[in-house]
């Protein structure tokens, strides 16, 4: 177990800069999830930590050691791949022991580790099977087992659940969370699925175009996104955004309005004339709700999921999504008014950065 530190990490292929000045500190035993859209550099970052790709510049430290020039095996990491990457011609037991053969460990120690991992992951009845005779979920457990037996300082997961079906994804996700509690190891987990990020992480690192867009605890990211990208990326369905302009500012009370928004007042210090984006999550946009923000829209479609329904409404040229609890969902085709409270509004300036206002604590 160890801490991990990335200092000013850069990766470029010719002109294309994949990662730009990434700085990251991960505590001992922390579960950090790297999340972002495809092509944001999260997998490249993980491969560089593993030692499978070399950074163009910058340092990687695991514990007290600078590991830039170390082979993957010498870094004391273990990686679980999206494709499982099991050795197809070896049975489950051999898959787990193959790497240890080269580690000078005594045989009883290897056997103990495999037995422990097999018990932990319920692989005991499968030890003599080949990967092709296993289901996807079993294969991924073997891949995790192969990582566990190495007893690494840092576990690296590269979208480990992407190839599983929905039900298995949920149960394997729970198993990984339990595993982290049990092993108390440092884990870095890459995914593009924000549900996995929210449920597993001690800390989420949201990446966008090779840069860290924001890092923080899952709920902090959810309730106080630092910029437009994080606001739009975290949360499902995504946040609603409205264009607005500060029309007046009278001693700390701003009056905002826009093409699709009727004028409304908020406490704040922004000067008149500044254009901003107002964001509000579907769950905070209440049908007939109170609050300064009021929008009227024509409901075009209602998705009923049972405990909640999502109303898709057209407001001017924009589409908004509102979450409606219980059975009171409107019918498609009616006009409805949605309202949001001041503390549920997120304001972003023209560069996409959060304006300290209207956030929850």
């Amino acid at each position: 177990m160890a801490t991990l530190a990335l200092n000013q990490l850069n990766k470029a292929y010719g002109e294309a800069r994949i990662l730009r000045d990434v700085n990251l500190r991960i505590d001992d035993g922390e579960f950090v999830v790297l999340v972002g859209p495809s092509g944001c550099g999260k997998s490249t970052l993980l491969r560089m930590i593993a030692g499978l790709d070399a950074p163009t510049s910058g340092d990687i430290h695991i514990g007290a050691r600078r590991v830039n020039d170390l082979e993957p095996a010498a870094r004391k990491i273990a990686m679980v791949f999206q494709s499982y990457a099991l050795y197809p011609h070896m049975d489950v037991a051999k898959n787990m022991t193959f790497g240890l053969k080269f580690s000078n460990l005594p045989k009883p120690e290897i056997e103990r580790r495999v037995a422990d991992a097999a018990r932990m992951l319920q692989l005991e009845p499968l030890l003599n099977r080949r990967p092709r005779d296993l289901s996807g979920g079993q294969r991924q457990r073997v891949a995790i087992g192969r990582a566990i037996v190495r007893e690494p300082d840092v576990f690296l997961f590269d979208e480990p659940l992407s190839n599983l079906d929905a039900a298995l994804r949920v149960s394997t996700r729970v198993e990984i969370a339990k595993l982290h509690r049990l092993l108390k190891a440092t884990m870095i987990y890459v995914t593009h699925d924000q549900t996995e990020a929210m449920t597993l992480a001690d800390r989420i690192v949201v990446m966008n175009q090779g840069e860290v867009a924001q890092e923080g605890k899952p709920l902090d990211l959810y309730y106080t996104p630092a910029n437009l990208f994080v606001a739009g990326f975290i949360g499902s369905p995504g946040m609603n955004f409205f264009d607005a302009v500060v029309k007046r500012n009278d001693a700390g009370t701003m009056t905002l309005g826009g093409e699709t928004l009727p004028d409304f007042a908020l406490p704040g210090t922004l000067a008149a004339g500044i254009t901003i984006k107002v964001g509000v999550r579907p769950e905070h946009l209440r049908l007939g709700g109170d609050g300064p923000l009021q929008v009227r829209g024509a409901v075009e479609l209602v998705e009923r999921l049972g405990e909640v329904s999502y109303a898709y409404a057209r407001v001017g040229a924009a589409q908004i999504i509102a979450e409606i609890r219980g059975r009171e969902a409107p019918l498609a085709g009616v006009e409805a008014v949605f309202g949001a409270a001041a503390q549920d509004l997120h304001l972003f300036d023209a560069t996409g950065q959060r304006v300290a206002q209207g956030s929850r604590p």
Partner: protein
Amino acid sequence: MRPSRLAVHAVLLTYTALATLPILLVVMNSFKTRNAIFGAPLSPPDSLTFSLIGYTKVLRSAHVGTWFVNSLIVTLGAMFFVLLFGAMAAWALTEYRVRGTAALALYLTIGVMVPIRLGSVAIVAMMRHLGLNDTLLALVLVYVAQGLPMAIFILAEFIQQIPRDLRDAARCDGVPETRIFFEVIAPLLRPAVATVAVFTVVPIWNDLWFPLILTSSESTHTITLGVQQFLGQYITDWNSVLSALSLAILPVVAIYVIFSRQLISGLTAGAVK
């Protein structure tokens, strides 16, 4: 069956007949008396014309056994090194991208296009220089050179289809590079290895040219060259020639049967990328 498929089958059947008829004639006539071979070369052996004289003569001859063993040594030896070095080179060329990789790959591709026989004179001179003239080693070396470019070409194509994650996983697992090749990659190359083995073995086994120019004593002849001994200037022992040739077909057929199941998947694996 649609007409176009009928036409395809007609063409293929015609070609099959053309290719197999001479072999059939050789095998058929090897079981006949000398008179019957000349009297009715196209008719199969019957109770009057059936004879094993050719086979008894060939099997009793001391040389034929030696020639068979020589052919086997040369063919299997060359096959082994072509597969070993071919797979290693293909792995290196696809996995380790260093300066000169592209040039080296191009150089080897040229080897696929230029027939090795063009270098015959130089090869003979070189072997004489090395003192390898009239040895089986000379033949093995030449056949390894002949087989390598195609082997590398096919195997490299195949290695590229092995998922990257597998090598990365092995590296994270602390498996040394040589062991990654021999214990992770090589076992997965089986279908491709079968393809390359057949492509390598058949031309070597059948080759007459290099034994002819590189071996002079009867003890180093291969079977294809040895058979020529039965073809005299004045008298040709057709019974022995046909029997020896029929026997020479068997090892190649055996190798094909052994590898054929792997071979089919090997050929299609390269086709759909």
